[in-house]
């Protein structure tokens, strides 16, 4: 084929981009000219610096994805690259004129599938009338008999429906598959759009690209719409947890929709009502947006071996007390076997013809279909009819004679478990290549578009996820795994600034969904404690490194490192940074901190994750000498401070945030009191060098110098570290903040709890502080007195922590579940 000639207005390099006669080309028409709806994009990108734009977009995309990736990586593994997608910032464009058919076709299909579910789980008329073979639903593992006869509270089986579409060689769109139980992809689509908005802000604004955010706002409204007369309906996203491969999307979607993210153990059913276990006690949940396969959702009535579900959930559904999106049992429609039967089903249920066709599919359970398939194996791809059959699609044309005979025998033995589909040559679209950044390569694409229940019908999101096949040659639907993604841009008729459309008036003010699961709150609390602990230990260890070579200071440093657990034995500070066997050592604390961070990842900003990743790198690195150790500790201290700063500043200041801060206060009170008591019992504490070193370990030397004209002395140091009400490291300050936070929590969780430290912090008058500096027995007696009251304070802080745990996280202890049968 000759290199296409471009009109002069479109100078963006096509490079090696070529049409392929066997398939539709999204970019070029039959004459090899750039299609008109792409020209705007080409013009806006196509200037002499087009290559630079591409390079910048690709780099920025990679960076933004990496940042988001770190945010959601399990344990924030800095090497983690297990993101399922990569994003090519060059969008896939859909001409304005094409959208109405797709929109109407998908809305119709969603209505159809909803009605089909209502029949299958209700009167089963379609089977009785011979329109639907019993094999397809009844042989499907996600046809849940326990759900037969259920009537969804919302009147709908489907709230969210997604379809995969592809364009055939004739340019028409075909539906490849339907996603009906917990469609994934919306989170990625939103994330992709967010990224592309940042890297290609110009074209997105000027080309008249339809926005997708509004549809998700309306989805949120739909999820919170409830028949019950409840002022504050609560909707929750149910996730299998951080180990799930699409956890990123669950957390992202929950955040974008402003809904709480919960695991099965955060929820409980009592008396046919679903509740979220929160800091305030049990909160009724009206809608569950589940990202868990339906048979795992209720170990009582469905799969008994599921540890992820909520026992009794089906009972709550049966009682009409909870809406599930999508309702349990909707997974039965996820089978290619349905495709060939949808036209007569649409005729019967809706009295309509399907607007969008499905890819040609034969279900082998029908004898004529089986005979056709056996006779045309070469042209077909054989797939399982049910998702629990674990085999990859088989391409008839690629089989040997023996393989063909073997396959034919399998088809004849259990014909109803197989479907055959014709090969689909997907259309191809331009992708920014890996080599010369602005060179375009042709890759096969399909698109996933989501539909949401809205009013009486369905709203189709004008945009979505375009998925690209891994290689240029891949031309078959089922081989597109492992490819990348693109943002799908649906263009408007007239590229103009979208008119301002006032949002539909909500029946009630959307309420902030601040009901966070108590598991999450517990992890926030411990995140606070471990963060403060690791920070304090890092500073102490850093000071200890500096004390080497000063025998008296060194003795003190080792004693302090011992009491805090930094050193299990010996006095090797280099070891303290590397020893991850010591359960009280710094590496163990950082590990626990990172674990907690993983558990609360949905609450942490990207900045936190950069700090976490830096910390992990530091601990994994080796430190050759004291200088490297010192600088490593300095960096670690910086990361820990940054992490605390980001966490405290970027987070909504709700009860969870408050418990995080309570965790920090309790930890710091305890460790400061304990360490000061130890200092007071050392004879050398009267030495200015000793006082100076001690101030350094509490990160308070600078403050001391500002506040006191005198050289480091014991009494002013204690004034600063114990009494001072303004110094954030002082016991007095921490105590005051702790009391205030505890009072606020009591009010927030609507419990009349008057929680406080049992031992008030010591607050000696000036003359007592000065008396501590006396030499001889009198002084040491007074110092011992203060030391023991600090000991009591530390013990009281530990007891307070236990009480906080018992009061606010008590639900956790009940999570041990067992299945009886």
């Amino acid at each position, binding site marked *: 084929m000759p290199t296409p000639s471009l009109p002069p207005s479109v100078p963006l390099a096509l490079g090696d981009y070529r049409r392929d006669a066997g398939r539709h080309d999204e970019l070029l028409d039959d004459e090899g000219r750039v299609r008109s709806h792409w020209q705007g994009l080409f013009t806006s990108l196509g200037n002499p610096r087009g290559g630079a734009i591409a390079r910048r977009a690709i780099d920025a995309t990679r960076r933004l994805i990496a940042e988001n990736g770190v945010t959601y990586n399990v344990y924030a593994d800095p090497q983690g690259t297990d993101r399922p997608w990569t994003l090519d910032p060059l969008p896939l464009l859909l001409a304005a004129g094409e959208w109405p058919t797709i929109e109407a076709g998908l809305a119709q299909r969603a209505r159809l599938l909803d009605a089909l579910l209502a029949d299958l789980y209700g009167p089963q008329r379609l089977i009785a009338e011979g*329109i639907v073979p*019993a*094999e397809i639903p*009844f042989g499907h593992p996600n046809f849940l008999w*326990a759900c037969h006869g259920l009537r969804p509270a919302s009147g709908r089986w489907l709230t969210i429906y997604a379809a995969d579409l592809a364009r055939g060689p004739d340019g028409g769109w075909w539906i490849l598959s339907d996603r009906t139980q917990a469609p994934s992809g919306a989170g990625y689509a939103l994330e992709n759009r967010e990224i592309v908005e940042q890297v290609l802000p110009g074209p997105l604004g000027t080309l008249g690209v339809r926005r997708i955010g509004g549809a998700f706002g309306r989805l949120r409204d739909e999820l919170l719409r409830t028949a019950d007369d409840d002022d504050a309906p609560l909707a929750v996203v149910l996730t299998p947890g951080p180990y799930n491969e699409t956890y990123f999307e669950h957390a992202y979607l929950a955040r974008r929709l402003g809904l709480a993210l919960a695991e099965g153990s955060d929820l409980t*059913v*009592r008396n046919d009502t679903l509740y979220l276990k929160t800091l305030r006690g049990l909160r009724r949940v009206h809608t569950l947006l589940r990202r868990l396969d339906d048979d795992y959702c209720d170990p009582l009535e469905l799969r008994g071996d599921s540890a992820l579900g909520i026992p009794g959930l089906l009972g709550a559904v049966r009682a009409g007390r909870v809406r599930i999106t999508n309702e349990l049992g909707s997974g039965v429609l996820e089978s290619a076997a349905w495709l060939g039967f949808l036209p007569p089903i649409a005729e019967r249920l809706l009295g309509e013809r399907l607007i969008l066709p499905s890819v040609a599919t034969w279900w082998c359970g029908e*004898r004529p279909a089986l005979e056709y398939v056996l006779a045309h194996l070469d042209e077909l791809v054989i797939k399982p009819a049910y998702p629990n059959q674990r085999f990859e699609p088989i391409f008839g044309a690629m089989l040997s004679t023996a393989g063909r005979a073997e396959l034919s025998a399998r088809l004849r033995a259990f014909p109803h478990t197989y479907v055959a589909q014709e090969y689909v040559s997907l259309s191809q679209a331009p992708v920014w290549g890996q080599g010369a950044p602005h060179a375009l390569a042709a890759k096969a694409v399909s698109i996933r578009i989501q539909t949401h229940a809205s009013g009486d019908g369905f709203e189709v999101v004008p945009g979505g996820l375009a998925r690209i096949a891994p290689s240029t040659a891949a031309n078959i639907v089922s081989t597109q795994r492992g490819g990348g993604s693109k943002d799908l841009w649906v263009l408007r008729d007239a590229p103009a600034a979208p008119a301002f459309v006032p949002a539909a008036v909500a029946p009630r003010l959307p309420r902030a969904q601040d009901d966070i699961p108590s598991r999450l709150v517990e992890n926030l609390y411990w995140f606070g404690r471990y963060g403060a602990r690791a920070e304090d230990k890092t500073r102490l260890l850093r000071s200890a490194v500096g004390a080497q070579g000063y025998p008296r200071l060194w003795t003190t440093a080792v004693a302090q490192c011992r009491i805090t657990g930094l050193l299990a034995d010996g006095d090797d500070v280099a070891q303290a940074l590397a020893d991850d066997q010591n359960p009280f050592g710094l590496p163990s604390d950082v590990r626990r901190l990172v674990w907690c961070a993983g558990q609360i990842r949905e609450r942490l900003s990207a900045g936190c994750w950069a700090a976490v990743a830096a910390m992990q790198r530091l601990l994994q690195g080796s430190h050759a000498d004291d200088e490297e150790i010192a600088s490593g500790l300095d960096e670690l201290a910086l990361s820990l401070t940054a992490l605390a700063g980001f966490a405290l500043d970027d987070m909504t200041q709700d009860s969870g945030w408050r418990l995080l801060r309570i965790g920090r206060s309790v930890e710091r009170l305890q460790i400061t009191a304990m360490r000061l008591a130890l200092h007071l019992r050392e004879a050398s504490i009267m030495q200015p060098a000793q006082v100076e070193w001690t101030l350094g370990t509490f990160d308070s030397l600078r403050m001391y110098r500002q506040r006191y004209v005198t050289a480091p002395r014991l009494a002013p140091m204690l004034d600063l570290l114990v009494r001072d009400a303004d110094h954030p490291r002082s016991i007095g300050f921490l105590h005051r903040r702790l009391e205030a936070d505890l009072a606020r929590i009591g009010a927030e969780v609507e419990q009349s709890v008057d929680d406080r430290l049992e031992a008030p912090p010591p607050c000696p008058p000036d003359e007592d502080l000065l008396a501590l500096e006396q030499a001889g027995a009198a002084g040491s007696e007074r110092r011992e007195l203060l030391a023991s009251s600090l000991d009591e304070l530390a013990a009281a802080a530990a007891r307070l922590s236990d009480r906080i745990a018992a009061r606010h996280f008590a639900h956790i202890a009940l999570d041990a579940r067992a299945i*009886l*049968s």
Partner: protein
Amino acid sequence: MNGVVRYRLQHVTRYAYAAEVMISQHLLHLVPRPAPYQRCLDHSIEVTPAGHRVDGTDAFGNPIVRLEIDVPHTSLTVTSRMEVDVHARPRLPASESLPWERVADGFRYRAVPPGRDLLDAGRFRYESPHVHIKREYAEFAADCFAPGRPLLAAAEALMHKIHAEFRYEPGTTTIGTSVAEVLQERRGVCQDFAHVMIACLRSRGLAARYVSGYVRGVSSSDEGDSAPVGAGASHAWVSVWVPPFGWVDLDPTNDKPAGLDHVAIAWGRDFADVSPLRGTILGGGHHTLEVEVTVERIAIADARPGADR
């Protein structure tokens, strides 16, 4: 032959927990289902500690009791008592049943209304939680399913084969043991044998369901053979859909059709659908389970033979 036998049954299930259970939810299949050959005269379920109880019917038409206990407890006792009349079933001439291939082929989708019988039976032809469809099962049954053999004769042969080739060994299997393993090891209990037989039948395209119930410890049949196996606990057998007769119950554990010794409670696709007592608990730690079933034949004071259908 006595046409009707009256039973008094008691089924006690006791769970003891090492730690307190804070909340528990249970599904009970303990109420006998009405059937042409049996009538329940009286039934009661006693639960200690008492919980919130809702009675209903499951998707397969079985009576089901849903129970939620929200007071802390360290033991749970469920006592089910019933009086049931069991009527003799007619002996069916196996040779008059349809050839098995014709029955299997009759289920095939033909884009016409299948009719009520096929609709009903069609629910029991596919994979279910415990029963998979595999060529191994079809092959295991191959010698029973000669071409053209009447289905009832084939199904009875399969029952004999399982009885002859498998050892009844309580304790060697659990509910977690797969049917494939049972076929491999050739041993198990009534539940395993029922699952194996169902898997073989379904793998040949036939409809078979799992029946949960009780069997009397001393035979009451007039054939005077040995006492049935499987008494003292819940029992299970298989129901095969055999046109023109309809559902025919065969007990592979005892190698005979279900009859006067059998009291049916519920049926479904396999054990998972009709487990007598299934539940989830919150807390509890380790638990121990005791099950006690007594089946007692009692006199029929006012016997009215033939009063029921």
